[in-house]
């Protein structure tokens, strides 16, 4: 089966700095990866996804990097803002599987 681990349960960054949130997965056959943001009292909100045939994908102020060699996934947030304060989850699915396995989440706190 798949397991998804996280390097840091909490992260504090200064407003305006870049944030990097990391995730590690166990199954080399995993081929779909998603990042979610969960604010207090709300459900997870889709941020960005990437498939295993790519190693980088960019969105608005966010970039996801995938290193299949070491089974590592990261989310970079540029110019972090107070509204970015939330818990961030990575989720992974295997080839042909539609079931996501979630990491435990990193709580990002932005210092004004």
């Amino acid at each position: 089966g798949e397991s998804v681990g996280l390097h840091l349960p909490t992260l504090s960054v200064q407003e305006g700095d870049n944030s990097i949130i990391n995730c590690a997965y166990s199954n080399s056959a995993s081929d779909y990866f998603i990042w979610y943001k969960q604010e207090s009292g709300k459900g997870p909100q889709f941020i960005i996804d990437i498939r295993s045939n790519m190693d980088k994908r960019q969105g608005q102020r966010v970039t996801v990097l995938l290193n299949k060699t070491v089974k590592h996934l990261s989310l970079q947030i540029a110019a972090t803002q107070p509204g970015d304060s939330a818990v961030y989850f990575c989720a992974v699915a295997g080839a042909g599987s539609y079931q996501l396995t979630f990491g435990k989440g990193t709580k990002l706190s932005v210092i004004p």
Partner: protein
Amino acid sequence: EAGVTQSPTHLIKTRGQQVTLRCSPISGHTSVYWYQQALGLGLQFLLWYDEGEERNRGNFPPRFSGRQFPNYSSELNVNALELEDSALYLCASSLGSNSNQPQHFGDGTRLSIL
């Protein structure tokens, strides 16, 4: 476009009771997923429905069950409630099951067991 909607938002029950939670997916989405988010444990996969059929279930006892209706809405039923069932129950939907598609979540039902 309306997102995934769940009802009720909060619920308080006592041990041994039964509960039904409801979910309406995003219009056009045929797959519905249920997750349990207990404090400090992340999201644990419960059930996956697609086109009215149960496609997979997570490592939960049989007292957790559900169904999907012809309009793709879904119910999660939990029988014989236990204290450890206290959690946020999240529903997500996605565009079918032909390829990996992002799951979009509702804001959940907060279930408290006294």
